[in-house]
């Protein structure tokens, strides 16, 4: 019984040692496989890019701090545009999580990083949501 307890404790310590309290995973997260779904999402986003850029310049669509876009008073057309764009973006984000073996809750991290990139690449005047949740124009 005592040896079983020691073995159990050793197993716990081994797992803790392997993980550490703040294990840093320093890796390159990428699209490792261009699946048909991902390819279709990328193609659709490329074809939609000019229309989306124009909507952002008009202020009817904005970039959220979750790596998605949201309609901002642009009516059904802006809503449909945002819905299609978000569907394709999420396909790509989920593929990055799955293909890199990240935990499911890493999706929020992926979205936050893409949002940061979108803010950096936004054109002057585009509506962007800051990390705080506040909306601004770049």
């Amino acid at each position: 019984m005592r040896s079983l307890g020691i073995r159990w404790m050793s197993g716990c310590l081994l797992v803790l040692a392997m993980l550490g309290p703040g294990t840093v995973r320093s890796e390159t997260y990428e699209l490792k496989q261009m699946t048909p779904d991902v390819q279709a999402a990328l193609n659709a986003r490329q074809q939609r890019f000019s229309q989306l850029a124009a909507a952002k310049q008009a202020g009817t669509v904005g970039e959220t701090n979750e790596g998605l876009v949201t309609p901002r008073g642009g009516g059904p057309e802006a809503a449909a545009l945002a819905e299609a764009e978000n569907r394709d973006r999420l396909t790509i984000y989920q593929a990055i999580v799955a293909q890199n073996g990240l935990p499911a809750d890493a999706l929020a991290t992926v979205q936050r990083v893409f949002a940061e990139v979108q803010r950096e690449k936004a054109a002057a005047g585009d509506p962007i949501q800051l990390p705080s949740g506040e909306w601004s124009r770049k």
Partner: protein
Amino acid sequence: MAVSGCTVKAVGDPNRPITIRAHITVDVKGLKQTASNIEDLVSGGSQTP
């Protein structure tokens, strides 16, 4: 940098199962570069994600 939680189950004594909650810090530098490449591709750039 971002923190994401995960649960690891260690099996030793079936009568005394334990659950360890660990936090993994994800280095997002590589992810940001990938994101940038993908957005360049979408906008008509030539980088491959």
